[in-house]
């Protein structure tokens, strides 16, 4: 039961984080469209790290 609540909290946290990353990247691209490539690469790396953390927590708490 508690691990399910924990899994839900992890997913909420990861969702907020991914939203922040995606939103800020969008803002950055809108301000400087010529830096789109660099921003996208950095965004994907950070998103992957966050995802790894979230999956790791889900995996350990399963």
């Amino acid at each position, binding site marked *: 039961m508690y691990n399910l609540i924990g899994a839900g909290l992890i997913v909420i946290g990861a969702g907020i984080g991914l939203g922040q990353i995606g939103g800020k990247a969008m803002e950055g691209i809108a301000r400087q469209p010529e830096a789109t490539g660099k921003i996208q*690469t950095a965004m994907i*790396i950070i998103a*992957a790290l966050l*995802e*790894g*953390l979230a999956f*790791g927590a889900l*995996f350990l708490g399963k």
Partner: protein
Amino acid sequence: MMKIFQQSFKSLALVLLVFLPASIFALNEGGDGGQVDTKNEVADYILHHIQDSHDFSLFSYTNDEGERKHFGFPLPVIIWSSDGLRTFMSSEFHHNDDGSVIVEKGGLKFTKIHSKIYELEQGASTVKFDADHHATNGHKVLDFSITKSVFGLLVIGLLMLFWFSGLARQYKNKQIPTGFGRVLEPLVLYVRDEIARPNIGEKHYRRFTGYLLTVFFFIWFLNLAGLTPLGFNVTGQLAVTACLAIFTLVIYSVSGNKDYWMHIFWMPGVPYLIRPVLAIIELAGALVIKPFSLLVRLFANISAGHIVIMSLIAIMFTLKESLGVVGATGLSFVLSFFILLIEVLVAFLQAYIFTMLSALFIGMAVAEHDHEHEHDDHGNEIPDAQDVRGDFI
């Protein structure tokens, strides 16, 4: 034009030749025919799919006479028992997975419980279970079998060998590759120019491009193979992803230069009291956390994708009563179709991220720091506190 057709036909014929046996072998076996709750059956099926299995089974059904029909082909079982090597085909287990079929080979009795092969003790003829459903009179053996995942891995490996050696051979006499090589060339250039070169650096990237290309295409092709109805789940096996992560770990640890290890064990530019604490954190990061995040990310993404797709396909069985056959099938089709499209993207993205992070880790390990340290008034060096490349991640 004709040549392209011929070559694509050859590749197609090869793929068909590999997978054709599946349609020929129709194995027949008596089943219990009992009615099982649909939801439990679906959950069992999905869990069974996520696991590795000893035979290549495409689908099975129960016919009107109550017989269970399996379509697929058996794979070789190679085990190292207490009395040495034993080999036989997995068809001898008759698709049984709960330990009720006993195979006797060279005086030893083997049985399969939840895709694990157990060796029974001397004199035992049936498996005994304790309260937690663990076998009490048998033990696991060292299993080197060509399981479904190993089979898929070998098929993809051979196809890669065939495709990329063909691509390499074409450069000998002409400038532009033909056939499937024309698809692969831009991807190879992409991995080299967008992943290896900017992350590892102009001086060292050539040494590691081979590994990065191999790991990228290996993961990508296996991810795509997992989306076909053949039902591979190779990159969703912890053993496979762990092995790939260990490759990356060994490569960046072995090729790490003096500065890299210096930044791990005795971080310059921070107070002396903090350095031992940082050394512990950095060491754990370099040897445990980096490879662990690599292996868990790939495993969890692919497994989760498979579970979601299969659950959405299962909607047509679980919601049949409440929505009607047409409604449930339509809902299931629409949902699983779009999730499959996303999964095609995820298949590429996970291969890209694994390669990208591997390149990043290798790049940190081989990065050459320009030693233009600032000097204080007495001419002593001030360690470079601005240099954060080694501390990232």
